[in-house]
């Protein structure tokens, strides 16, 4: 939208409106010029483009409305061609908004209508001011050359069900598909996608680096966290979840070779983690995933493979949280993990406990047997 105060000269150059209005833009441009001329005659010096557009639109609507009502009255009288009285009747119909002299008289002759008198008066008063430009006859109806039928060409239709009077088919090379086109299309597509792919690669490598950096950075504080849970202030700066794999390393479980299937899983997971890091959204299910995983593992008992799964899957989750900075999720997750650690620890000590119990039981048994002997002696 431009305010066309200073551009009266080139107001009929509207490259954008041509596409919008289709074929009617020429007529509308002429209407604008005509209305602008009338306004200038009335006394205006400049105008807002929108005001001129509105007024010219209304003028066009006015003409349209007169034509419609005149046509209606002509048809009402049983004629197809209109005459002056139809137009005058149409003008009278349009009049009531403002009113005209003699409108209250129903039986008046149309020729003596106030509308006519006002128009005559206007024509006599107004100076003759013809349109500024000479206009070619429009709309130009382009003479269309219909495609010749099979009969005109003198060809036989390719199939029996096609009658001869239908337009002939175009030349076969116009609609036969060449194989080269199919090869080209994906090429251009690839070219378009290449920069985006490269960018994505760079981004991924950056994120991987960040992830590694984060893992390395968390080692110290995480060990502190492992020692004392009460030091949560300290662990708030460093992410406590990163400590989880360290537990397992300390417990000497981490020495394993990743199975091919699982390593694939990890590689698949990383882009997902990237996406999550970008969106900064972590769903509840995702935040609890490690905990759920750990619970499952407990159920399966501490078999080597299960712990591997846990270890393999954890880094992705930890990285996600480290970048997403979801502080809320931390305390929730802290408990199950710690519980996990606490519960895992006894597993390794349990054997000793059992042994102790057994030893005690044996001792007692021995003692009792000795005692019975003693008792028997007594």
């Amino acid at each position, binding site marked *: *939208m431009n*305010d066309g*105060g*200073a551009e009266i000269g080139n107001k009929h150059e509207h490259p954008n409106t041509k596409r919008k209005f289709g074929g009617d833009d020429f*007529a509308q441009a*002429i209407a604008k010029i*005509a209305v602008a*001329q*009338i*306004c200038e005659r*009335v*006394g*205006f*010096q*400049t*105008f*807002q483009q*929108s*005001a*001129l557009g*509105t*007024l010219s639109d*209304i*003028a*066009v609507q*006015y*003409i*349209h409305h*007169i*034509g*419609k009502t005149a*046509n209606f009255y*002509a048809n009402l*009288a049983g004629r*197809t*061609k*209109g*005459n*002056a009285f*139809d*137009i005058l*009747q149409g003008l009278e119909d349009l009049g009531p*908004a*403002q009113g005209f002299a003699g409108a209250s008289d129903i*039986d008046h*002759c*149309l*020729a*003596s209508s106030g509308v*006519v008198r006002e*128009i*005559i008066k206007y*024509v006599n008063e*107004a100076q*003759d001011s013809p*349109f500024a430009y000479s*206009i*070619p006859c*429009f*709309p130009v109806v382009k003479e269309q050359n219909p495609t010749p039928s099979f009969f005109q060409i003198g060809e036989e239709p390719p199939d029996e069900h096609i009658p001869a009077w239908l337009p002939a088919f175009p030349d076969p090379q116009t609609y036969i598909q060449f194989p080269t086109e199919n090869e080209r299309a994906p090429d251009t597509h690839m070219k378009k996608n290449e920069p985006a792919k490269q960018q994505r690669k760079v981004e991924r490598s950056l994120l991987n680096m960040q992830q590694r950096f984060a893992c390395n950075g968390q080692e110290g504080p995480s060990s502190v966290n492992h020692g004392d849970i009460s030091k949560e202030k300290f662990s708030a700066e460093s992410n406590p979840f990163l400590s989880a794999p360290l537990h397992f390393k300390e417990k000497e479980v981490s020495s394993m070779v990743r199975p091919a299937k699982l390593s694939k899983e990890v590689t698949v997971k990383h882009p997902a983690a990237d996406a999550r890091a970008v969106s900064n959204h972590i769903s509840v299910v995702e935040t609890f995933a490690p905990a759920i995983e750990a619970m499952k593992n407990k159920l399966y008992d501490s078999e080597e493979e299960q712990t591997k799964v846990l270890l393999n899957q954890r880094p992705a989750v930890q990285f996600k949280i480290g970048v997403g900075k979801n502080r809320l999720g931390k305390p929730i997750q802290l408990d199950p993990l710690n519980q996990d650690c606490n519960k895992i620890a006894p597993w390794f000590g349990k054997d000793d406990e059992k042994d102790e119990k057994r030893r005690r039981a044996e001792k007692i048994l021995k003692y009792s047997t000795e005692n019975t002997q003693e008792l028997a002696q007594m």
Partner: protein
Amino acid sequence: MNHNNQQSSDGRHDDDAALTEFLASLMDYTPTIPDELVEHYLAKSGFHCPDVRLTRLVAVATQKFVAEVASDALQQCKARQSAVVKDKRDKQQKDKRLILTMEDLSKALRESGVNVKHQEYFADSPSTGIDPASREE
């Protein structure tokens, strides 16, 4: 469409004569709205008549309508400007120009039964009609 030919035959003759004379005079009169435009829109509306005088009649009627609306808007503009000038005397030079604005036009059109809502947000700036050099951005 002769409603009252019995009542006043003399008057009817006068009116008829005036109308025919007027229509004949339209042959010499060239309205500002070009014939081609009017013919185009009349054809679009379904009205069909080869008579140039009727086309001119419609053109003249439309011209009269537009001129009336424009003069109404001009009065609105002048009234507004006189009110503004009293308030701000330093902006007299800018206000001297007569600008057809949507504000005045919508007021003028309301009288003739057209309800135009002014597009306040994007359509035109108040500095319209002033030389681009003197506009302050």
